[in-house]
C-alpha cells in the first residue's frame, strides 16, 4: 500500500506534458542559479548584498513579509468551505492549503538567507539554545510560522491519504484543526506586522494600523495569485473548479482591497495632517526626501495598480468575466508585492535613526537569490499540487471521484 503510493507519487511527478516538463526544468535551472549565488553569500557574508548598517533589512525580509501574507490567505478559502459549508469552493481548498505550505517554506528560506550566522540556528532551539520567549516578538513569529506550516501539511496529507484510500474522510476528527487554522493564519500575519509595529525607533512602522493593513493586503494578493493558478490548473488537469467558486474568490478580493485602500487613506491622513517629523519616511516613499526619490515611481505604480484593480472589481459585470478579473488579479499581485515589499521594509530605514539617507535597492545577487527561492517555492507547489490532483481525480489511488470531499 505504502510502496504503491510512493510509486504512484513518483510516477506522477516524473511524467507529464511537455509544458509541465519545461516548467519544472526552468524552475530547476533558476533554483540552481539562485543557489550558486547563495554559496557566494555564505562564503563572503551579507556584504555581497546592498544592505548596510543604515538599511539593515532589505529585499529578503521584504519578500518574507509579502509571502507571509500569501500563506495566510489560504484561510480565505477555508472559512467559507468548512465553516459555511460553501461546497463549490471545495475542490480548491486543498490547493490553497498546498499554496500555504509552499509560501511558508519560502518564508523560512528567506529568513535563513537573511541571517548573518544561519549555521547557529540551534541557538534558537528551546532547551539546547535560548528561546527568548515571550519577550522577543521574533520568537512568536518562529512559533506561529512553524505551527502554521505543520498544520497545513497535516490537513493536506490527512485529506489526501483518506481520499487515496478511497475512504470518505469525516471532518469530525480534524474539525478542531481546521477551526484552529483560521486564527493561526491571521496570527502569522499579525505577528509579522508586530515585528515592525513594536519598534518605536522606526516611526514609519510604529503604527497601530500596520497589522490590519497587513491582513487586508494579504487577503487581496494571496487570493489574486490563487485565482490565476486555479485557472491554469483547471485548464491543464482534470480537476474541476466551477466558475462560481472562482467568482466567489473574486468577491473576497474586492472586499479585502476595499479595506486595504481605506487603511491606506487612514494612514496617509494621520501622517500628512499632523505633519510631524515622523512624516520623513512617508515623504521619502511618496515624494522623495532631499532629492532622494528612488522608491517614488514604485510606490505610485502600486497605488495606481491597486486602485485600478479595485475599480474593475467593483463592477459586478467586469468581476464576473475572466479577462478583466485576471487583469485585476495581476495588478493586485504586483501592487501588493511592491507595497508590502519595497514600500514597507525599505522606507522604514530611510531616513535612518540618525537621519542618514542611504538609498537601498537590492542588487542583482539579491534578486537572483530571490528568484531562486521563488523557483523552489513554485517547484514545491507544482509537485505537491500535481500529486494532490492525481489523487483527487483518481489517477492514482482509489478515490471515488463522484464523492465531494
Amino acid at each position, binding site marked *: 500500500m505504502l510502496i504503491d503510493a510512493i510509486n504512484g507519487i513518483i510516477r506522477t511527478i516524473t511524467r507529464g506534458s511537455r509544458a509541465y516538463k519545461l516548467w519544472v526544468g526552468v524552475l530547476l535551472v533558476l533554483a540552481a542559479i539562485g543557489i550558486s549565488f547563495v554559496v557566494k553569500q555564505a562564503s*563572503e*557574508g*551579507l*556584504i555581497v*548584498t546592498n*544592505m*548596510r*548598517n*543604515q538599511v*539593515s*533589512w532589505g529585499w529578503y525580509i521584504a519578500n518574507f513579509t509579502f509571502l507571509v501574507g500569501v500563506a495566510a490567505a489560504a484561510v480565505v478559502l477555508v472559512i467559507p468551505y468548512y465553516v459555511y459549508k460553501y461546497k463549490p469552493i471545495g475542490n480548491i481548498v486543498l490547493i490553497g492549503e498546498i499554496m500555504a505550505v509552499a509560501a511558508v517554506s519560502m518564508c523560512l528560506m528567506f529568513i535563513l538567507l*537573511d*541571517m*548573518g*550566522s*544561519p*549555521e*547557529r*540556528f540551534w*541557538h*534558537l532551539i528551546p*532547551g*539546547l*539554545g*535560548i*528561546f*527568548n520567549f515571550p*519577550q*522577543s*516578538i*521574533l*520568537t512568536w513569529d*518562529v512559533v506561529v510560522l512553524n505551527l502554521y506550516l505543520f498544520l497545513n501539511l497535516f490537513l493536506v496529507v490527512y485529506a489526501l491519504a483518506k481520499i487515496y484510500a478511497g475512504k470518505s474522510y469525516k471532518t469530525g476528527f480534524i474539525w478542531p484543526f481546521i477551526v484552529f487554522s483560521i486564527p493561526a493564519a491571521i496570527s502569522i500575519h499579525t505577528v509579522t506586522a508586530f*515585528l515592525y509595529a*513594536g*519598534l*518605536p*525607533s*522606526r516611526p514609519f512602522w510604529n503604527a497601530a494600523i500596520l497589522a490590519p493593513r497587513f491582513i487586508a493586503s494579504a487577503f487581496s494578493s494571496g487570493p489574486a495569485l490563487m485565482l490565476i493558478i486555479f485557472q491554469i490548473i483547471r485548464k491543464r488537469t482534470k480537476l474541476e473548479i466551477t466558475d462560481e467558486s472562482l467568482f466567489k474568490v473574486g468577491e473576497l478580493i474586492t472586499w479585502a482591497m476595499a479595506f486595504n485602500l481605506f487603511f491606506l487613506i487612514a494612514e496617509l491622513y494621520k501622517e500628512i495632517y499632523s505633519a510631524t*517629523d515622523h512624516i*520623513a519616511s512617508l515623504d521619502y516613499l511618496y515624494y522623495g*526626501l*532631499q532629492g532622494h526619490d528612488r522608491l517614488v515611481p514604485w510606490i505610485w505604480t502600486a497605488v495606481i495598480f491597486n486602485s485600478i484593480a479595485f475599480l474593475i472589481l467593483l463592477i459586478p459585470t467586469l468581476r464576473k468575466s475572466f479577462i478583466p478579473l485576471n487583469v485585476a488579479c495581476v495588478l493586485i499581485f504586483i501592487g501588493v508585492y511592491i507595497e508590502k515589499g519595497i514600500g514597507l521594509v525599505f522606507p*522604514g*530605514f530611510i*531616513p*535612518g*535613526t*540618525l*537621519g*542618514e*539617507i542611504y538609498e537601498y535597492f537590492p542588487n542583482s545577487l539579491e534578486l537572483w537569490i530571490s528568484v531562486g527561492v521563488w523557483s523552489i517555492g513554485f517547484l514545491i507547489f507544482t509537485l505537491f499540487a500535481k500529486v494532490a490532483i492525481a489523487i483527487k481525480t483518481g489517477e492514482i489511488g482509489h478515490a471515488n471521484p463522484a464523492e465531494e470531499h
Partner: protein
Amino acid sequence: MSEDIKGKNKGSLTRRKFLAGLTAGAAALALPAGNADAYMVEEYFRQHFKRLSKDDLKDILKKMEDELSFKYGKKITVKATPPMDDVVFGYALDLSRCIGCRRCIYACVKENNLSRNPQIHWIKVLEFEKENKKWQSLEHSNRYYNPETVPEEGRYYVPVQCQQCKNPPCVKVCPVRATWKEPDGIIVVDYNWCIGCRFCMAACPYGARNFNWGRPSVPKEEINPNMHYLGNRPQYKGTVGKCTFCIQRSRAGRYTACVEICPVGARKFGNLLDPKSEIRYILEHLKVFRLKESLNTNPKFFYFFSLGRPVKR
C-alpha cells in the same frame, strides 16, 4: 531576565556534558584534527556566555588566547572581568567643547579591534548647521563632513555611540538573548551567540549597533592584545557589535579610549552610584539632556553645554 538564565544553569550541566561529548566526538571524527579544528568545533557548540561554568570559561579563555596569539603573532590576553560591586557607568558629553575632530572614532577603532576593512565605527560624529531652522532634526545632520579644518564656523558637532539604555529596546527584541544588560549597566553582545538576525539594529533608536557584513579584519601590527570576552576581542562575520564603554578598560578602573583621546576634554565618564564622581557633579550642577527621551529608553549617556559658545582652537 538574568535570574531565569541562572536558573537554567543547573539543568544545563548535563546538556553541557552532552555537548562536550558531541564536540569530542566530532573532533575525533575530523581526523587528523589539529588544534585549530578542535577549537572551531568547540566554538560551534559553545554555550551562551552566561551559561558557562567558571571552569568552562577559564578553559575557553585559555584556548582563545592561544588561538589569537597564534593568529596575530603576539601574546594576547582575553579576560572576562566581572562587573564591580556598586558601580553603574555613566557618560556625559560636552557639546560646547566638541570640535568634531573624530579622534574618538579612530581611538575606538584601535582600542576595540574594530574591522579596518570593511571599516566599522562604533562612534559617529554628526555635524549640524547652526543656521538650520530645525536644530534637533537629525535628518539635517551630516556624518560625512570633510572640511580642511574643524571646527567650522556656524557648525556644531554631536558624537553618538551606544547610549547604554537603562531600558534597552535592543535587548528586548533579541530572539536568543545574545545581547543583555550587565549589572554595571553596560549592554554587551556575546559574539559567539548572536545569530545575526539584526532585529536589534532595527530596534535601536541611536544607530549604535554595527553588523559585520563581511569578514572583519585587523592588521597584525595594530591588534590591541588586551581583550575582554564581551568587549574588544575580534568579532565574526555575520554578527553584531557595539560600544561597550571599553569594558576591558572600564572594569579595570580605567577611562574609555574615547575619553582619553578627546583633545578638548569633552568626554566625561564615571560611576553614577558614586556621589563624589565627576559624572554625578555634572548631572547635579549642569543642565543635561538625552537623545530621544520620548522613546523612554532611559540612556545613561548624557549631553550638556558647559559654555555659552564653543571653544575656539
